[in-house]
């Protein structure tokens, strides 16, 4: 029944020839450098928190992540995040910034449909998948570690 056309070979050849390639290598390098720098900066923040404000290591980690999320939300709201993400890609998507941005951007986008049914219902539209699969995989990891512990 399903009649889904596949790209025909002759047309695929034309497409391959005429379509500009994604700059995968340079994207990877940019993402690696930027993502790494971001982590270095955050580590510095953590060290400062521990050294000067007398946080313990665990608290400092939480606080610095919260700061990063706040910074992401701010950049998203000011409209700079998406421009930066176009350049550095996964360098921003992999750290917690990607998750924060997906929630913040949805909150802003659906504000026009109201606080509850708009922003509220849609805030996890993109991030929901991360939460669901995060919990599911955590469950299985816990199960495996439990079984290993028993054996």
């Amino acid at each position, binding site marked *: 029944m399903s009649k889904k*056309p*596949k790209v025909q070979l002759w047309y695929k050849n*034309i497409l391959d020839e*005429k379509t500009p390639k994604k700059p995968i290598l340079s994207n990877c390098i940019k993402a690696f450098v930027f993502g790494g720098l971001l982590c270095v900066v955050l580590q510095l923040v953590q060290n400062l928190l521990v050294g000067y404000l007398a946080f313990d290591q665990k608290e400092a980690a939480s606080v610095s992540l919260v700061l990063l999320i706040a910074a992401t939300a701010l950049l998203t709201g000011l409209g700079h995040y998406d421009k930066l993400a176009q350049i550095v890609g996964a360098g921003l998507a992999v750290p917690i910034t990607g998750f924060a941005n997906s929630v913040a951007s949805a909150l802003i*986008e659906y504000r026009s449909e109201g606080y509850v049914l708009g922003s509220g219902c849609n805030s996890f539209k993109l991030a929901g998948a991360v939460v669901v699969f995060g919990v599911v995989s955590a469950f299985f990891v816990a199960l495996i570690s439990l079984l290993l512990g028993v054996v």
Partner: protein
Amino acid sequence: MEQQGPMNGAFDFFYPDSRAGKDSFEMGEQAIEERASLLAISKAGLLLENIDLFISGDLLNQITSSGFTARNLGLPYLGIFGACSTSMQGLILASFFVSCGYAKYALASTVSHNCTAEKQFRYPNEYGCQKPPYAQYTATAAGSAVVGLAKPGSQIKVVCGTVGKVVDLGVTDPFQMGAAMAPAATDTILTHLKDRQVEANYYDAIVTGDLGFVGREICWDLLSRSGFVYEKERFYDCGCLLYGKNPKVFSGGSGCGCCASIAYGHFCKLLMEKKLKRILVVATGALLSPLSSQQKESIPAISYAVALEGVDA
């Protein structure tokens, strides 16, 4: 963005903000279309009461921008959907009603908005995702045309139109719009030339809707393989023209408003100034939805061609 492009002379009016002074992007889009429609009527030297039929479409779900514009204009209304090809689809229908005598004047409008299209078809506007270099940028623009029977002082004539077939060569990547639509444009151009039994050179310019830089190259390649002979300099694409080579728009502009504004604003002006005599406008549309592409469906594309001629006064 549109104002900074090389085609800013094609537009009558620019809004300084993307909501056009309204509360939401959607309301802004509707306001832009309403303004374009009223401007077209007044430029034609007519009043709202003179218009017998309003034909319009846009990219939003249930074509709400058009419906709300029709509510505010208070005109008999036919809502249409042809994705980015809506401009020429509407023009063909408007011309049909007028030439059959069912309407004295018909108004064909269309609009698209970058932010509402992003919201509906892709991700939230502020969401950071990396777009490939062949992606296109939905134009925030509207275009309207009033069609009536020829009278002294008429400057442009709608000669004929070709309703295209839906062509689908199996492209599934919703960022590859140009590649999905190029075969449809090719098919319609060749059918049109065959039906009219004219050579491509009969037209001073062939203007495709919004294939973008990538799609234009593919379309040109497909046409050349079919023995199509033409000068590439006169084979324009509205998506390439609207913003010029701008890295922010990747492969070029798209959206209903792209073809409408450039065809009506730029090329019709050239016809009126007698710089061009005969043009063929080929609007292209990708008939996909976010749902269909998530269900791994390919992208069917449609294309409508309209031949326009300047009239010697």
